[in-house]
């Protein structure tokens, strides 16, 4: 069995998760601060890929990055490579499709952050960036990791947009999802089943991680509530 699709899927998912992690945090942090109307509009745009069919995302990406399209032609001129049909083209697709998961989880996390922690840090003379990296992110870490794990899982399972922008070239752009489709089309049932099991295995592990993170988070909140309750009954 050729393990290339597994390796390719994992590297695409890993790289896009890193991109999504930082982009999602930045978007969640800055969008919380802008005026309400603009916030509403940007929020819709950034969440849209979550509900759009992946083929629509793939089509839009092709319109943008295709070798004869505006951005694609410009990049072709500068870098001398096409943006589509390479293994890393799939990263464009997975980043766009999985981004809303990170963005929304991070935003929820930031919204529940107790702002007096930042205030107290500032009155103590700590710089705003210190507070961001050393207080806000660590305090919100459970939500942020959960968002990253979800984004990773989604990126790993992406099929629609990936197949449109990266296609299926065995040993070059094949991912697990596109391989399963190809194997089914060519009636290689046994091999398809193997890949399906691999995929189910990875996804189950990822979901297990999410559950464990949420459980830890839940316990922490429960402990806090219990303490507050005990304090108020005296």
């Amino acid at each position, binding site marked *: 069995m050729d393990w290339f699709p597994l390796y390719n899927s994992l590297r695409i998912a890993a790289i896009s998760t890193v991109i999504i992690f930082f982009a999602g945090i930045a978007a969640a942090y800055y969008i919380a601060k802008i005026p309400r109307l603009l916030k509403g509009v940007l929020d819709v745009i950034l969440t849209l890929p979550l509900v759009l069919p992946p083929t629509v995302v793939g089509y839009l990406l092709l319109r943008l990055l295709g070798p004869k399209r505006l951005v694609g032609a410009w990049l072709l001129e500068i870098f001398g490579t096409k943006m589509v049909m390479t293994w890393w083209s799939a990263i464009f697709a997975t980043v766009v499709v999985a981004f809303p998961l990170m963005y929304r989880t991070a935003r929820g996390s930031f919204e529940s952050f*107790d702002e*007096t*922690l930042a*205030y*107290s*840090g*500032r*009155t*103590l*003379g*700590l*710089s705003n960036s210190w507070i961001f990296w050393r*207080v806000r992110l*660590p*305090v919100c*870490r459970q939500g942020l990791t959960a968002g990253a794990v979800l984004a990773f899982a989604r990126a790993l399972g992406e099929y629609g947009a990936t197949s449109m922008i990266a296609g299926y070239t065995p040993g070059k752009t094949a991912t697990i999802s596109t391989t399963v489709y190809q194997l089914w089309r060519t009636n290689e049932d046994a091999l398809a089943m193997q890949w399906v099991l691999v995929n189910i295995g990875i996804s189950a592990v990822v979901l297990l991680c999410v559950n464990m993170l949420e459980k830890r988070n839940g316990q*922490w909140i429960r*402990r*806090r509530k219990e*303490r507050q309750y005990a*304090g*108020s009954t*005296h």
Partner: protein
Amino acid sequence: MLEVHIEKHLSSFTLVVDFCAHQEVMALLGASGCGKSMTLKCIAGIVKPDRGRIVLNDRILFDSERKINLTPQQRRVGYLFQQYALFPHLTVAQNIAVGYRGRDKKAKRQAVQNKIEAMRLQGLENARPGCLSGGQQQRVALARILINEPEALLLDEPFTALDSYLKWQLEMELADTLKHFGRETLFVSHNRDEVYRLCHSVCVLNDGKSEAKQSIQDMFQHPHTYAACLLSGCKNFSSIRRLNDWQAEVLDWGIMLASDRKIPEQATWIGVRSRSILLSSQKKQAQSFPCYIQRCLDDISSTILMLQPLHGQEGAALRVEIDKDKENTQNWRPGQTVYAFIPQDQIMFLQ
């Protein structure tokens, strides 16, 4: 010296605060939601006032005319939040170390150790704030602020998050800490007992407007305004109509008041404490007035009577408190008529 003259428009009222504190513990006293915490936030630089000036010693923290607005980091004002705002992911020692301003690692470790000892936190160095009691959390928060060497201290209702047993213990500790600190301290509270015990002076905030600063004894013995008198724990108020320097009509209770003290011209209210009213079954003094006993309530150490003056307005009941161990505890019963007498020197004229 901490000088504050600020204005800030808020959704439900406009905050207008004007006071000056000199190396003292000053209380900002007011009902909840009257702008006490907002005032502290303006001083700390978390919220920007619309107009005004804040000066701490020789530094201008904020001046709207000269366009000066220092960041909270530059102000060196320590702020103790109601819930203490400790960083939950750091240990006690790390939380305190965060406040240290110097760079020298050895000096920092020593300073943190000193603060841990001073605040009696030994053995808790590696605990997280979530595992501490409310009192311990407050001590960590104070240690973190004091290691930062602030030039003024703002305390936002420091005892609300605690149960009453801990509160007493911590209040005594805080009194020592404040004495040792010895600089301008603002103490926000709605609890008059705490304020009386801990503060030297008091500034009453009434619907977002600050009233003139008073010494703490003055505010409790001779309050000038209705709001101050109410906050000092007085329960009985009536609006008055001043007839001349010596006479006034007490509108709510339907009586005439003849005073041997000059009635201040601005006086529109009088206040009488519930323990100052004397009762008898016969009319003994000329100024006594008949009342109907609405109800008798049994309190722990006193009996509380609710009296409706016979010629007064409906619902303008007086609250009278009689100590239980006093000999004059007659068995007052609801429905009886009694004569109430307010000694002249117990009447507080208010604006």
